[in-house]
């Protein structure tokens, strides 16, 4: 048993790995945390984490470039129901389609599209960068991964595109930035955060710890 953080060439995974290690220590989760590009290790993991920074299409191409990874993800997350956590663009890839520069298909696990943030207030900066206050959706308030998290808790964001979720029951939290921005999504055995839990101090470590103990 192990946690597999998928390395597909999208950014630095050291801080994500360190945050999972810390949360594991704090919650008594003793299985190893692996950063891996090996689909076999992902297949054998108990928990799967997909990080991601940069552009949607680049991340999708990076994921596709690891032979067998998308197949293993579908097999383990959809067919086998293993706990899955997408972070930032890793969350966005759970959507149906990304419309950043070019149109790019997602994993299509949670219906919705990823589009540019267009705040109604022209003085708001893009990227949406910094600490924003979470507002939990009805589906988020009772979600085990958000246990101990309340409205107004802060999480760290850095992104210029965001996800419109088709089914409101699959959005767990939002933040306000000129408009409502999706902060967290989930259904069944999968969750995803637009924010960086590994950079969100106590709030982030709590969410990661909850995920490690989650039995969906």
């Amino acid at each position, binding site marked *: 048993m192990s946690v597999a953080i998928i390395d597909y060439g999208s*950014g*630095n995974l050291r801080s994500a790995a360190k945050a999972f290690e810390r949360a594991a220590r704090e919650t008594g989760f003793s299985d190893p945390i692996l950063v891996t590009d090996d689909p076999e290790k992902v297949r054998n993991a108990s928990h799967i984490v997909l990080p991601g920074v*940069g552009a949607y299409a680049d991340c999708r191409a990076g994921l596709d470039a690891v032979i067998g990874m998308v197949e293993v993800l579908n097999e383990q997350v959809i067919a086998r129901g293993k706990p899955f956590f997408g972070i930032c663009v890793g969350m966005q890839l759970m959507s149906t389609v990304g419309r950043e520069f070019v149109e790019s298909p997602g994993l299509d696990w949670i219906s919705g599209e990823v589009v540019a943030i267009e705040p109604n207030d022209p003085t708001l900066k893009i990227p949406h960068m*910094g600490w924003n*206050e979470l507002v939990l959706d009805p589906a988020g308030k009772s979600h085990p991964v958000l246990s101990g998290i309340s409205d107004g808790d*802060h999480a*760290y964001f850095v*992104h210029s595109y965001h996800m419109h979720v088709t089914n409101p029951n699959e959005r767990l939290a939002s933040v306000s930035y000129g408009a409502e921005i999706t902060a967290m999504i989930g259904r069944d055995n999968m969750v995803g955060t637009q924010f960086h839990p590994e*950079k969100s101090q106590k709030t982030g470590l709590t969410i990661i710890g909850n995920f490690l103990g989650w039995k969906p």
Partner: protein
Amino acid sequence: MLKTRVIPCLDVKDGRVVKGVNFVDLVDAGDPVEQARIYDAEGADELCFLDITASSDNRDTIFDVVARTAEACFMPVTVGGGVRTLEDIRKLLLAGADKVSINTAAVKNPDFVREAARKFGSQCIVVSIDAKSVGPDKFEIFTHGGREPTGIDAVSFAKQMVEYGAGELLVTSMDRDGTQSGFNIPLTKTIADSVHVPVIASGGVGTLDHMVEGVRDAHASAVLAASIFHFGTYRIREVKDHMKAAGIPVREA
């Protein structure tokens, strides 16, 4: 609501904090990671390391500092100073930095910023702009710690850097740096109003009101300071309390 960030900066040389006050709760005041932990606990929103190591022999010391910080602090870390090549950026990101700040290399070769943003993503590319007022509403980039004029207009340069993919700009008022007389408001405001990316105001902070002015008057999305935190003049919590009292949204940790 998005909060205004307060960012302490640590000057690091050969892996050690250059100047610092000996807080009672520090085991080793010269260890940047110890300082980083204090700032983290006090509610800093991000952390910045400025590496001023001169000798190329000791250039690698910053990687160890960043790596140890990434194990202890779960907040965004920016590293600046001597970032000249894609390999420099790659090594810093692998060590655990979230963003790198590019200064001289961007002035010498603006295309470097374009290459860096393309390779690593705009979210981790901060361009650091050191500028002074050289006339009414005229601002020029200076290098070498503010000694060398470049003839480059700071506002046009800022726009160019954003066009090339900078995700954030760190604007340092070189005519104010170290004076504790406050930010150069016209400089910071002109740049902040000219670009769509966040601007961090830096240089010259001496009082709590200066932090407020950087946001309220200069339209910065974040304020950065080194000395007032190094020397313990103000703690991060005091800065945030003051900003909050002035009506600026801040994150209370």
